[in-house]
């Protein structure tokens, strides 16, 4: 569905279709001679389709509760990565906003985390939580110590600092 050929996209829904910036001018475009205006009180259903303009790695459907008229909270995620070959620590400053889990968010931002089941039962992604709080979207089943979290099934509640081992 190419929105730019549809004059109806110039209405209030235009904002939702900003795939690549401004909608191009289409006065001189005449594949079909005339556009037939639909004689409807309500807007065509097609115009209500929402294309996903987000990063594919950070899907629209989020485990976070949508608050009307408010942006999703962005939480800073500070990562200390100790997994390098030469025992040197690496630091990543990333943020969490749209992903379904902390693990997805980290992966989308190129922070390598060990993973396996992605459902909270294998414990491969066990990570130390140094600061902040997380919320579990699924009950973690793998063994974790008091200061550890499973990024595959949690999202941050506050800004967090974590250490990958």
């Amino acid at each position: 569905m190419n929105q730019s050929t549809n004059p109806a996209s110039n209405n209030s829904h235009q904002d939702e279709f900003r795939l690549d910036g401004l909608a191009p001018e289409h006065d001189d475009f005449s594949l079909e001679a005339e556009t037939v205006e639909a004689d409807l009180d309500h807007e065509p259903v097609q115009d209500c389709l929402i294309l996903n303009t987000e990063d594919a790695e950070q899907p629209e459907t989020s485990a976070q509760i949508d608050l009307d008229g408010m942006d999703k909270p962005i939480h800073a995620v500070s990562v200390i990565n100790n997994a390098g070959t030469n025992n040197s620590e690496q630091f990543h400053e990333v943020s969490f906003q749209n992903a379904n889990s902390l693990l997805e968010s980290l992966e989308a931002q190129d922070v390598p985390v060990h993973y396996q089941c992605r459902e909270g039962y294998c414990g491969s992604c066990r990570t130390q939580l140094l600061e902040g709080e997380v919320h579990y979207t699924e009950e973690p089943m793998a063994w974790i110590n008091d200061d550890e979290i499973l990024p595959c099934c949690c999202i941050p509640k506050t800004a967090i600092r974590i250490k990958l081992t």
Partner: protein
Amino acid sequence: MSYTTFNQKTFDTLKQPMFFGETVNVARYDIQKHKIFENLIEKQLSFFWRPEEVDLANDRKDFIDLPEHEQHIFLSNLKYQTLLDSVQGRSPNVAFLPIVSLPELETWIETWSFSETIHSRSYTHIMRNVVPNPAEVFDDITRNDFITRRAVSVTKYYDELIEKCSFYTQLGEGTHTINGKVIDINLRDLKRTLYLTMVSVNVLEAIRFYVSFACSFAFAERAKMEGNAKIIKLIARDEALHLTGTQHILQIMAAGKDDPEMGEIAESCKDEVREIFLDAAEQEKEWAGYLFKDGSMIGLNQHILAQYVDYITDQRIVAIGLPPIFNAKNNPLPWINSWLNSDNVQVAPQEAEISSYLVGALDSAVDTDDFGDFDL
């Protein structure tokens, strides 16, 4: 303490330790001391699958086309997996059920063991489909030196625990003379044996199995033996749950809240635990040598598999609260993650490769007579 199938005593289940308390009477799950085992049971039941759901018709063709040394890798690996699941299909029941004291843990052990029997049945399913004479392969498991050597290290702790526990349940604590042999049975020593057995089970499921999974998936990475990999993937999903189970048992024991004596034992056994992990890693590397004795395969050789052994051993020993042995922090086989990821496990019948969905859809028994009236 003698074993009874229904303990007549009235006692508070929540005050029992995991093992060596009162034998379980009512199988009740309304009150639970360790809720995790109930969660594990539910998860395991939700994972239920049958090997027959996976069609292996293409694997037979793939297998025939494999060079001889790769056939050796494939079959030896499968023999090893068969051995491991033969042990796991019965041993948790035989060893742990007579001494368990919590209903939810008792049921978890049974559920756990049962799922291993599905794994065993799937190896027969694979063999039947892949090799002309499965009996040859199965018979070799008890004849082949390399495999039987593995069996000893896998079963020695189980057997010791089972023997001691049978004396304990029959004769109780004390010094006994059995068949002219003097045997000293005391509960603390039994608990120590139990702890070490649990460690060796964890090693079996969390290290030994994973090394064999790596081999199975290495074939599928090259689009060979994909039906086999699909089955192994389902097995791997179960094993991930089982190793979580043993990690929980070990951590609960070590914490000492469940049974203070167990906590002391765990503390005093640290060196032995490390030794069990180290031995297993060495044995797996030796096994890798046997697997690749006639040549390696694309994507996997003795060296890389040994690196994976180091990596997975460290991952597992850290998970039970001990320092790493090899300091191997990088996974040398990163592609294995996508095979171990349960997100990708699809057991819906719509999947074309699932044979039960295609029953009657094709006739695989074609005889030369069927072509009798063919004219070319």
